[in-house]
């Protein structure tokens, strides 16, 4: 190879970039976030159901919170009728976080895992936690 030194350095940089995640992880087992549902409020529930099915909540909770806030603040609506017919107070602090009073072990688990930093908590108050 001609100018081999420079080319090899360049290629090493290229390989380093393209395999960065592999090098960063080095084959470590990365724990999968585990959501704790063991809050007193949830324990008390006979039928341990969220507002909407888990699958829906997983992907749509941020949209739901967004639409809730507009509904509450702007439209003066207060209650949300879930698809199964039950109604809920539309409130992050007073509905969601009443059950999921373990923000660290619930919200933060996934949010940290996928590096999503919602700005909800700039205003909304997270429940007091022991830890």
């Amino acid at each position, binding site marked *: 190879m001609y100018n081999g030194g420079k080319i090899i350095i*360049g290629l090493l940089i*290229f390989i380093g970039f393209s395999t960065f995640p592999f090098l960063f*992880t080095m084959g470590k087992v*990365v724990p999968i976030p585990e959501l704790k549902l063991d809050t007193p409020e949830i324990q008390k529930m006979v039928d341990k159901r969220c507002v909407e099915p888990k699958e829906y909540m997983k992907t749509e909770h*941020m*949209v739901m919170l967004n639409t809730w806030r507009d509904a509450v603040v702007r439209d003066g609506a207060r209650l949300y009728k879930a698809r199964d017919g039950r109604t809920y107070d539309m409130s992050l602090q007073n509905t969601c976080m009443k059950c999921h009073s373990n923000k660290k072990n619930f919200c933060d688990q996934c949010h940290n*895992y996928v*590096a999503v*930093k919602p700005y909800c908590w700039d205003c909304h108050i997270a429940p007091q936690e022991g830890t």
Partner: protein
Amino acid sequence: MGILFSFAVVVAIVLLVFAGVSGAGLNYLFAVIIPYIALLIFIVGMVYRVVNWGRSAVPFKVPTTGGQQTSLPWIAANKLDNPSTSYGVIGRMLLEVLLFRSLFRNTKAELHSGSRLIYGSEKLLWLAALAFHYCFLVILIRHLRFFVVPVPAPIEFLEFMDSFFQVGAPLVYITNFLIIIALLYLLYRRIGMPQIKYISLPSDYFPLFLILAIAISGILMRYFDKVDVVGVKQIAMGLVSFRPTIPDGIGVIFYIHFALVCTLFAYFPFSKLVHMGGVFLSPTRNLANNNRMIRHVNPWDYPIKSRSYEDYENEFRDKMKKAGIPVEKE
């Protein structure tokens, strides 16, 4: 024809993945096997291509000079467009690779009122190319949040900057917008400008459609047909830690997006996209214009016999002598 063909290929890939995942349940194939293969092809392929270029000799130092040469001390040389030192060359290459300096120079010729050639400034291609490449880079780096734990602060910062304007939930990325606009402009050039259409090959349309499809499927996945992001990250982390897992219930749109990305990676080394590596090896840009200062050696140089002076004098000696021109042999 090239347009429709390339478009059809992209659609076919999408449908194939869809059928494979929701019909035949080939999740493992699309989420594990193909990604590994694609990455391997990408890395090995690119290394092979670059090494192959590297094995070609650089017999002559032929930089294209874009400014005043280094000559007399009182004449200001253009150190970047006509570098005579390694630093200058590095500067020139940085300008070229990071800012597309040559494209910045672009002009558009036009025959004004039938008789005058005029050259207008033409920066749109430069702008679109720059926007596209930088958006692509930012999007690529941003995606690393799925591939590393914990996510390093610089990646988080990039993500914050990209979603600087708080619009919607999940937040809208600025680069998503820009890359689509840039891609559409680049596509428009190939379809709407006769000259560019004329020179375009199927292999020019295909990457555009492919990347457009990647961008659109990504946007769809983030805002419309959402998937379980945590599950997606599990797949990604499974791949990078060589412990592949596939959680259930991840929407087919993810497999489509992922497969399109794998297609791009695997296609990369076989296509014009190798310009990513090639731009660094272009001898008209990465050499200094200092031949008269530092000798360049041709590695495959071989002896060539030319006409010697002796030969020459032998032919013309008489005439030279008659004209009073000195000769070696009287």
